């Protein structure tokens, strides 16, 4: 079971280009349709949890699925053992290692080679063309993300105010050098405070 988890995530990690979201359909096919480790509803719950928790969605999903599978499919040799509680953790380790290892090895190899050849004029010429493209690739998804952040209630229930908060935080990070960490912390505190106020007002009515 541990090997199966490791192997499944190794495959997913090796064959997905373009980050965590691209991994989700592949994970679904492997884990829900093929292995039947968890069902559709659990998979959707998993995505909600993986997105809500900090960190990378691919890694978070590996932790969740590793834990669920490990907790349910304890091998017979382990069931009477004192260490039975450790099995889900081993399953988590197997899944996370599988998800991370391919990227890690490939990038490390590139990092070693690239740092040796980055001074070559041909490589530098290629990178001069690539750099503005990368900035565009970071900026372009903002449009879709703005629309998505506003759904399902476009620009209502404080949507405009929240969008100005996006703008203010961008300016704070860009011009004032504020750490994004503070923006995240302030946002969470703000969300909890506003919700608490709203709930209190509702209970008074």
């Amino acid at each position, binding site marked *: 079971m541990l090997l199966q988890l490791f192997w499944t995530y190794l495959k997913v*990690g090796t064959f997905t280009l373009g980050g965590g979201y691209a991994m989700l359909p592949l994970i679904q096919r492997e884990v829900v349709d093929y292995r039947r480790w968890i069902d559709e509803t659990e998979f959707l719950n998993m995505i909600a949890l993986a997105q809500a928790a900090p960190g990378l969605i691919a890694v978070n999903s590996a932790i969740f699925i590793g834990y669920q599978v490990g907790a349910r499919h304890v091998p017979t040799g382990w069931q009477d053992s004192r260490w039975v509680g450790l099995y889900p953790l081993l399953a988590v380790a197997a899944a996370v290692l599988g998800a991370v290892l391919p990227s890690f090895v490939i990038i490390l190899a590139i990092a070693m080679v690239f740092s040796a050849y980055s001074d070559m004029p041909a490589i530098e010429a290629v990178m001069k063309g690539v750099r503005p493209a990368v900035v565009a690739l*970071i900026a372009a998804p903002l449009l879709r993300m703005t629309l998505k952040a506003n759904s399902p209630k476009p620009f209502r229930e404080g949507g405009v105010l929240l969008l100005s908060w996006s703008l203010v935080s961008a300016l704070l990070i860009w011009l004032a050098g504020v750490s994004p960490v503070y923006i995240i912390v302030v946002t969470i505190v703000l*969300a909890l405070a506003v919700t608490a106020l709203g709930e209190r007002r509702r209970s008074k009515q």
Partner: protein
Amino acid sequence: MIYLQLFLSFFKIGLFGFGGGLAILSLIQHEVLAYGWMSEKEFVDIVAISQVTPGPIGINCATYVGYTATQSVWGSVLATGAMILPSLVIMLVLCKVYLVLSTRFADNVYFQNTLRYLRFAVLGLIAAAALLLITPATFIDHWSIILFGAVFVLTILPQLIHGKRPTTKRALATLSHPILLISLAGIAGYLIYR
């Protein structure tokens, strides 16, 4: 000493990295530039390489930064491990809660509102990441602006066309794949600047 800084920085990035790879990029960028582990130019190169190699962009970035900052494999191991650690602890607690109570987090109003607010904060983070990278090192002449514009338009174009022409849409979606766009920009760069 640098190993301790690396660990603390990437632990922080893992702990506050809400909203997926691009938002985490903004956190990595802030830490990397604040400590002077590499220049803006090098950082953009790393993002480019992370986009065209398999796996989550955050892992790719952490591994690369860890290696470049220390010139050692252990730097990579430490940075990547430190970034995963907070997720591991928080997700395991959430899993336990989920298994025991089978609670629907999704129905909790505090939980939902916080997620909604964070989605907007993440917009700001990503916008700032892009703005911070518009420097003389990355935008060297008019060709840079042309390449930026071309990639930007090609990326948002498929989103603007609605349903009517599925074939056009599919063709555009293929063309707007980040790996293809980066490769094309690289070829263009070679032809212009060699």
